[in-house]
C-alpha cells in the first residue's frame, strides 16, 4: 500500500520536474529579447537591461532554471510585471474562485452524469436511453459560453432567481450565501462534462454487463437491481473514476471562457489578462499551479483506484 503511494508520488514528481523545465523554457521561446517584448515598444534600453537583470536572464540557462525552480519550491514564483506584486498573491485571488467553481461543477458532473448514465444503460435501447444519449450528445457539443448565455437569459434575466455575473468571495460579506453566484457558471461548465461522464458511464456499464462474472451473479438468483449495483456499476466505476481526475483538471482550463461570460474573478481570467499584458511571470506561475493541481488530482485518483480495484497493487 505505502509502496504503491510512494511509487505514484515519485512518478508525479518526475512529471512535475519535466513540466517545470518546459514552463521555464517557455519564456525563452519568445522571439527576440524577452525583456524587451515584455516591456513593449515604449521601453528604453535601460529599462530592458534592468528587467534582464531582475529576471536573471544574463545567467547561463541551467543556472536560471535552478534559480527559478528553487524559488518556486519556496513558494516564490517571481513578481508580476504589470502589478509589481508577487505572482503568488496575483494567482491566489483567482485560484480560490476557480477551485470553488471547479469543485461545485464536479459535484454536478458526478450527481448528474453517473446516475443518468446508469439509467440509460439499464434501459438500453429504450426510448428513454435513446433520448438521454441523444441529449447528452447534443449537450456535449454545445460550447459552454452558449449554455452560459442561455442560463443567464432564463434564470437571471427572465426569472431573476440567480445573479448573472460577478462573485464576491465567501470570505466577504454574505458568506456561504455568495455561492449562489457560482450556480449558473458551474451549471454551464458542468453541462458538456456531465454529458461526457454520462456517455462514459453508460458505455462502461454496457461493457461490464457482458462480463462472465455478471452472468455468474445472475446465476446466483440475486435481483437484477443488485446485479446492476453490486456487480456492474461497481466495476464500471473503475473507468469512470479515472476520468474524474482528467475532467476536474480540464475544468480549470475550460473555466477560462465561462469566467469571462460570467465575469468571475477566476484564474482563467487572470491568464487571459496576463497574456494580453505579456505578464510572463504570472503566466508561468498559473501554468505551474495548474500542472501541480492536475498531478495532485490524478495522484489522488490513482490512490483511490487502489481501494476500488484490488488487482492494481500487482501491476
Amino acid at each position, binding site marked *: 500500500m505505502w509502496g504503491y503511494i510512494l511509487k505514484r508520488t515519485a512518478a508525479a514528481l518526475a512529471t512535475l520536474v519535466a513540466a517545470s523545465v518546459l514552463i521555464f523554457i517557455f519564456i525563452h521561446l519568445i522571439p527576440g529579447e524577452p525583456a524587451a517584448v515584455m516591456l513593449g515598444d515604449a521601453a528604453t534600453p535601460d529599462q530592458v537591461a534592468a528587467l534582464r537583470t531582475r529576471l536573471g536572464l544574463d545567467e547561463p540557462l541551467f543556472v536560471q532554471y535552478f534559480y527559478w525552480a528553487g524559488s518556486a519550491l519556496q513558494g516564490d514564483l517571481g513578481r508580476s510585471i504589470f502589478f509589481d506584486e508577487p505572482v503568488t498573491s496575483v494567482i491566489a485571488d483567482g485560484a480560490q474562485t476557480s477551485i470553488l467553481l471547479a469543485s461545485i461543477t464536479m459535484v454536478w458532473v458526478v450527481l448528474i452524469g453517473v446516475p443518468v448514465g446508469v439509467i440509460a444503460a439499464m434501459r438500453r435501447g429504450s426510448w428513454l436511453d435513446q433520448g438521454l444519449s441523444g441529449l447528452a450528445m447534443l449537450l456535449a457539443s454545445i460550447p459552454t459560453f452558449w449554455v452560459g448565455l442561455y442560463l443567464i437569459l432564463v434564470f437571471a434575466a427572465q426569472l431573476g432567481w440567480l445573479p448573472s455575473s460577478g462573485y464576491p468571495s465567501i470570505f466577504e460579506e454574505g458568506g456561504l450565501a455568495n455561492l449562489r453566484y457560482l450556480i449558473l457558471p458551474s451549471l454551464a461548465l458542468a453541462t458538456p462534462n456531465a454529458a461526457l461522464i454520462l456517455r462514459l458511464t453508460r458505455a462502461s456499464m454496457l461493457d461490464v454487463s457482458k462480463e*462472465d*462474472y455478471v*452472468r455468474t451473479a*445472475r446465476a*446466483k*438468483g*440475486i435481483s437484477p437491481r443488485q446485479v446492476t449495483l453490486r456487480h456492474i456499476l*461497481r466495476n464500471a466505476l*473503475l473507468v469512470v473514476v479515472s476520468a474524474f481526475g482528467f475532467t476536474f483538471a480540464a475544468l480549470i482550463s475550460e473555466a477560462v471562457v465561462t469566467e469571462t461570460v460570467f465575469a468571475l474573478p477566476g484564474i482563467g481570467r487572470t491568464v487571459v489578462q496576463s497574456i494580453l499584458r505579456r505578464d510572463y511571470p504570472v503566466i508561468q506561475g498559473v501554468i505551474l499551479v495548474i500542472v501541480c493541481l492536475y498531478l495532485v488530482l490524478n495522484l489522488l485518483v490513482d490512490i483511490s483506484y487502489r481501494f476500488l480495484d484490488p488487482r492494481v497493487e500487482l501491476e
Partner: protein
Amino acid sequence: MLVVEDLVVSVGTPRGALDIVRGVSFRIEPGEILGLVGESGSGKSMTSLAVMGLLEKPGTRVTSGRIAIDGADITDATPYERVRKGNGDVAMIFQEPMTSLNPVRRIGDQIAEAIKVHDPEADVNARTRELMDLVRLPDASLQQGAYPHELSGGMRQRVMIAIALACRPKVLIADEPTTALDVTVQLQILGLIRDLCDRLRMGVLFITHDLGVVSQLADRVAVMYAGQIVETGSVGTIFSAPLHPYTAGLMACVPDPSTGHAPLVTIPGQAPRPDEVTSGCPFSPRCQYAGEPCRDGLVPLVRVGEHTAFCHFPLNMGVAHV
C-alpha cells in the same frame, strides 16, 4: 429430477429468428451425471443456458418446449424469478474460472452473496466455511479474505462450485468447467464433481467436447449435432457400440496412442450453420453411410434398450448391448 422436453431455442438475427436448439429432450436423475457432447456450435451451451434461465433475452429465447425440475415448470424463468417462486435449485458453473468471479470483490463475499439469496436465515460465516470445506478449498479462513486474482484457476473453479452449491442444487450444470485448466487440476475438479454428485445426490449436466472426460465421468451420454440430440445412452454402450455414425466418427477422431504416429482421423466436411440446416438428417451430407431416405423427411428413432439414436442406418445393431 430435471426434465427437458422438446426444447427449442432461437436467436433473433436481421433475417429473422434462427433455431439454434431444435427439439432437445433429456432427463437427469438425482445422483446421475449426463454428459452432453458436441462440437462448437452444436447448441450444447445454448441448451445449458436455457436450462439455467440465462439466455440473453430478448434476442435469444426459448420458443417452445418445457423445462421442469421435480415437476415444477421453470421454462423461460430467470434464476431470480425461480428463487422467488422457490424453484431456485438449478446451479451452474462455467468454462472460464478466471473471468467468472467478480475481480473486485473478496471470494468470501461472493459465496456469502449466494448463501443469503437461498438461505436468508443461515449463519453466513458457518455456511461459507462449510461450502469451502465441501469443495476442499484449503484453509477456509484465509481464503475468504482473498480476491479472485490471488487464486489459481483450479481454486477459482472450486470457489465457483462453492457458489453453485450455496442453493443446495438438485441439478448442477457444468459448461466445460475444466477446459481452461491444466490436466492435473482438471482431474481434481472432475473428481470433486463426481464426489459431490454422489454425496449430495445431485444431478449433473456436464457439457464438454472432450470424449475422454465423458468416458471417465458421466453415467449417461447425449451426443448433440446441429442443435439436436442424435444419440443417447449409457457411457458403456455408447463407447462400445455407438448407433449413430456421427458418434462413431467422433470416437474415431480421438487419437489412439497405441497406433503410433498414424495420421489423425477427421470427419470430412463441416457441421452445418444454423441457417443451413434443412429437412432430413443434418449429418447426412457428411455421412459415409447416408442413403436416399436420409436426405428428406423425418429420421426414425432407433431404440436398443435405453440406448436411442435418430438414424436410418444405425451401426452396431447386431452387437450385444451391455
